[in-house]
């Protein structure tokens, strides 16, 4: 019980700070979530983290709901609700304020510098997420081939992502990975 209270405090601090750091989308802070949830707080092991990530990708809705699952594992239903609200609220307030200013600042040099300059950083962070997740899932060569094939399919065609994740799950279920 005491542990759960402490975990709630950690959940609140972790996700409300990651909320403001999740520049470029929720996926960019996945390496940091992994570092804290697996290495610092030991809420779960790397395999479980990778599984929760897969569940969050295969469920409809924003993939940021991964934090709902991490919060649930750390501190039950209360943890799940707290993690979700903590992840959405700080950034949400900021975004709301910016949405009021954005339309009025079309000619500002800062706006164009941000639009152009942050794009390469975002791509780097997204790729780092993919890299960290594949290390965490402990991929062997067969899993790598499956990942490669799915990446190719998703990059070059307009296949619905749920079909790709679902198809990959089926291939795994058949024991081929």
């Amino acid at each position, binding site marked *: 019980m005491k542990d759960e209270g402490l975990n709630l405090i950690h959940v609140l601090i972790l996700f409300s700070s990651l909320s403001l*750091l*999740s520049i*470029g989308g929720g996926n960019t802070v996945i*390496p*940091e979530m992994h*570092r804290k949830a697996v290495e610092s707080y030991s809420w779960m092991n790397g395999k479980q983290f990778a599984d929760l*990530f*897969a569940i969050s*990708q*295969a*469920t*409809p*809705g*924003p*993939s*940021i*709901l991964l934090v*709902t*699952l991490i919060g*649930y594992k750390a501190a039950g*239903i209360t943890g799940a609700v707290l993690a979700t609200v903590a992840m*959405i609220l700080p950034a*949400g307030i900021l*975004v709301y304020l910016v*949405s*009021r200013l*954005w339309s009025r600042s079309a000619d500002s*040099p*800062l706006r164009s*510098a*941000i*639009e*152009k*300059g*942050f794009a*390469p950083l*975002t*791509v*780097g*962070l*997204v*790729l*780092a*997420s993919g*890299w960290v997740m594949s290390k965490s899932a402990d991929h062997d060569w067969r*899993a790598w081939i*499956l*990942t490669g094939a*799915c990446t190719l399919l*998703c*990059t070059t065609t307009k296949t619905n*992502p749920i079909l*790709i*994740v*679902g198809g*990959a*799950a089926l291939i*795994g*279920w058949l024991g*081929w990975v």
Partner: protein
Amino acid sequence: MSDAAKACPSLAELALTFNHISLVSFGGGLSAWSREVVVVEKKWMSEEEFLSILTMCRILPGANQVNVAIFVGAKFLGLPGAVAAVFGLTFLPAVLILLLGAAYFQYSHVPALQDALKGAAAGAIALTLSMAFKTGRKCLLGTVPWILFVATFFLNGILRWPLFGVLALTAPLALLWAWPKAK
């Protein structure tokens, strides 16, 4: 002007619309579905307005889809609109994912489930990698963007630096490079 007035939705319509967007789309598909509904079906925004908002939502902290919901909701009905849109987007999926998560921790020892999840993880990682390729193809044009991209990936992905440290180093360089030149 009259078009915008005609299109102005109620709080309930905002919540229901984003709930609909949320439930029909998965993972990386959300921005595409938002565009389909907001621009094409409901005509709440022009293509240009939606795209510039999408860029902004990717730069700002927070999940992109949540941010889009805030921008769209706030455009029509201010703060209540933003809250309604975000609630519609997240509530049912959060309940759904909790049910799945609870089932996972209950049955995660079942071997067939382990195998299926291993496959699903490979697929999910592929979605992330392909998003990096798709967006990289559009914005990694030239030497400086490539250096910024590789440095960010290397520091965060390989050296596992905390995000704050990575951005403290790379973000000022990126802004310096991208700042519009004086005429």
